[in-house]
């Protein structure tokens, strides 16, 4: 159990340690460290520690060149989640409505197909990917850049609770460690390390998500990128990845195919939809549109479109962001 002492020592000294340092300070610390009472206090907080040397430690993570000494784990999900086929979905925090929509859709469809979605629980793309997975009833794994007892960012406290219910929140940092800017790139290597493949949904030219993609490439993992508008700064990073040879993602099926999975057959949405809503849905499947554009393309007036859009929203067939409505593939 020397890894737990190492993690506790790192937390105590505010440093980032992968291997045991040959310092006198550490020998003193580990000499007086009571691993058993530390493990007990973790247990009291509902947390556990998966050491690098234990069998529960994910093999993929062990294979990276600087694997964390262990993972602190919180949540009701089984530890074997970390051993299942895992896909990372990462991207910008200040995402556009397009990125938000795609992240949620990918999260949902990958989880529905049985993959474990891993991300960083940050605002924007990360959070949406987790939410999408939860919507599909799939467990999801959040990797934090601070102690797992901290809900960071605070605005995602409710999301953290939802993730912890069926999935896992993990971190290499001991409980009580505060988030700090330099910890996030280190956290990104765990996201990339846990996943067979990393999908970048939306990223600026110098985004943290690109660090994750680089780390994934370094470890020989596959990197996917979602194409965006070439004029949008928010897609500059992902488009640059594509130019460098990342695999474009045009639908969740592109990813599922890579894992030998077949996407579940879509449900026929016409079953419980009224004709007006169905007509609107057909138009939105072609391209996203504003209400005004729908008025001119369907000939319906705004008073008829309101109810139709609500019914499609409730059926999970349409999402709205910034006044733009997008059709969603019927959930499988």
């Amino acid at each position, binding site marked *: 159990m020397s890894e737990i002492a190492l993690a506790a020592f790192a937390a105590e000294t505010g440093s980032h340690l992968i291997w045991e340092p040959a310092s006198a300070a550490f020998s003193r610390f580990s000499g007086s460290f009571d691993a058993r009472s530390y493990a007990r206090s973790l247990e009291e907080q509902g947390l556990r520690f998966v050491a690098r040397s234990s069998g529960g430690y994910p093999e993929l993570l062990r294979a990276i060149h600087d694997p964390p000494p262990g993972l602190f784990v919180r949540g009701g999900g089984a530890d074997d989640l970390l051993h299942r086929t895992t896909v990372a979905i990462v991207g910008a925090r200040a995402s556009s409505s397009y990125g938000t929509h795609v992240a949620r859709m990918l999260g949902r469809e990958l989880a529905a197909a049985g993959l474990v979605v891993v991300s960083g629980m940050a605002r924007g793309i990360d959070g949406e990917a987790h939410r999408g997975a939860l919507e599909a009833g799939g467990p999801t794994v959040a990797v934090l850049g601070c102690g797992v007892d901290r809900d960071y960012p605070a605005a995602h406290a409710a999301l953290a609770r939802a993730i912890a219910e069926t999935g896992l929140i993990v971190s290499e940092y001991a409980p009580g460690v505060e988030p700090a800017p330099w910890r996030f790139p280190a956290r990104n290597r765990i996201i990339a390390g846990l996943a067979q493949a990393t999908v970048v949904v939306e990223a600026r030219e110098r985004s943290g998500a690109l660090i994750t993609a680089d780390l994934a490439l370094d470890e020989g993992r596959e990197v996917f990128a979602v194409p965006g508008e070439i004029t949008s700064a928010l897609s500059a990073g992902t488009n640059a990845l594509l130019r460098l040879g990342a695999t474009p993602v045009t639908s969740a099926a592109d990813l599922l195919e890579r894992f030998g999975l077949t996407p579940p057959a879509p449900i026929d949405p016409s079953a419980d939809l009224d004709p007006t809503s169905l007509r609107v849905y057909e138009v939105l499947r072609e391209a996203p549109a504003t209400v005004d554009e729908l008025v001119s393309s369907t000939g319906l007036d705004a008073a008829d479109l309101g109810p139709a859009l*609500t019914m499609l*929203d409730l059926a999970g067939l349409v999402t709205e962001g910034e006044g733009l409505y997008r059709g969603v593939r019927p959930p499988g």
Partner: protein
Amino acid sequence: MEVEAHLQLAETPSFAIVGLADRACQEAKERVRSGIKSAELDWPKHRVVVNLAPAGLKKEGSGFDLPIALTILAASAQIPARALARHAVFGELALDGRLRPVGGVLAVAEGAKRLGYESILCPAESSVEASLAGIDAIPLRHLVEAVAFLRGDSVPPPYVPQNGHKPLPDAPDLADVRGQERARRALELAAAGRHNLLLAGPPGIGKTMLARRLPGILPKLAGDEALEVTRIHSVAGVLRTHGHLIETPPFRAPHHSASTAAIVGGGPGPRPGEASLAHLGVLLLDEFPEFPRPVLEALRQPLEDGAITIARVSGHAVFPARFQLVATMNLCPCGGRADPGAECSCSAQQLARFRAKLSQALLDRFDLVVTVPRPRAPELAAAPGEPSSEVRCRVERARAGLQDGPPQRTPEANALLDRAVERLPLSGRGRARVTRVAATVAALAGAETVGADHLAEALSFRASRDFAT
């Protein structure tokens, strides 16, 4: 309010006003003395004490000039006191004895009527406004005229406004708006159900232009409402109708640099603020998130109760403030979001701070939330929209329909509501809001009951995830 004067023989003549008079009131001394002398009347060579009763209540403003002058004249037997006692009196004196109009005449005239007076002596320019109270307003131009009238020598000629009564310009028309179908629909619903409306979207797409067109589709104020609005505007001294009734719902658009007191009212002797001036009309807060937090929080009380209570050491004032709140906002601090022609350069933190400013409690006050996207070229080339007058007809019909209380929901509508509460993040307040809007949708459609379709449309106007932190 009663004005009494006591004249006492004394070595040195003096003049004092007692009864909690403010500065403007104390200065009445000089105006009254000059006014009486200019009117070639006698200033009593006595010790003059004027008491404004009840003495415990604060008096302010220059409207007491004429009452004080006439009381002194009556006390010095220059006019018959009995004749004076029959009339209410209000007005400011100029140094040469002319009379000047004062704000708040309507409220004074109404008070006089309540006390049983049949006529009020007031400056000629204020007489039109005073007569709105249903009291006989005697229009006076000069102190001499008042004296002649009270002595029974002559009756002042009726007041003819010199520039005539110029009607206020009409509110801008909805016909000027091309496209923006969803925002137009939201405006119509807001007008019919008196709902609070939030318009969000990139800058320069006409959010303010749309909001300014709301008063034009609101029904005209009914008799009592018009009187109430006119009274508030008169008290605040911003009446621009030359003494005529305000019949169109007021529209107020304070700038976001306005102080809390300017918006909800305040000052030592509390005065109504913009929220009260917008009573029974529209209060537009352009660039809503730019308003300081205390201002926004202060608006929560009037949004709930339709009135503003301002507490002071000497008591408290309650101003009516049942306004309809219309707010506009960008989707991010730089304004680039949702604008295909611009790029949002806001960081995640900036965005989070911006959104956090709109507390859930505040967002909850908006029944209708619309994100207005930037219109593309074909819409700008579209035919002019429906004119305001036609929309107003529908709004008036819907208002009439809503008067008999909220209509019943059909079982289908209830089932949809339950489903929505389950699927969407819909708070208790949000649920109540949706049902209110649904009732308006039904009333606009002329339906007897609230159907699932009406409820579904109401649901489409709730705040989207763009507003969540």
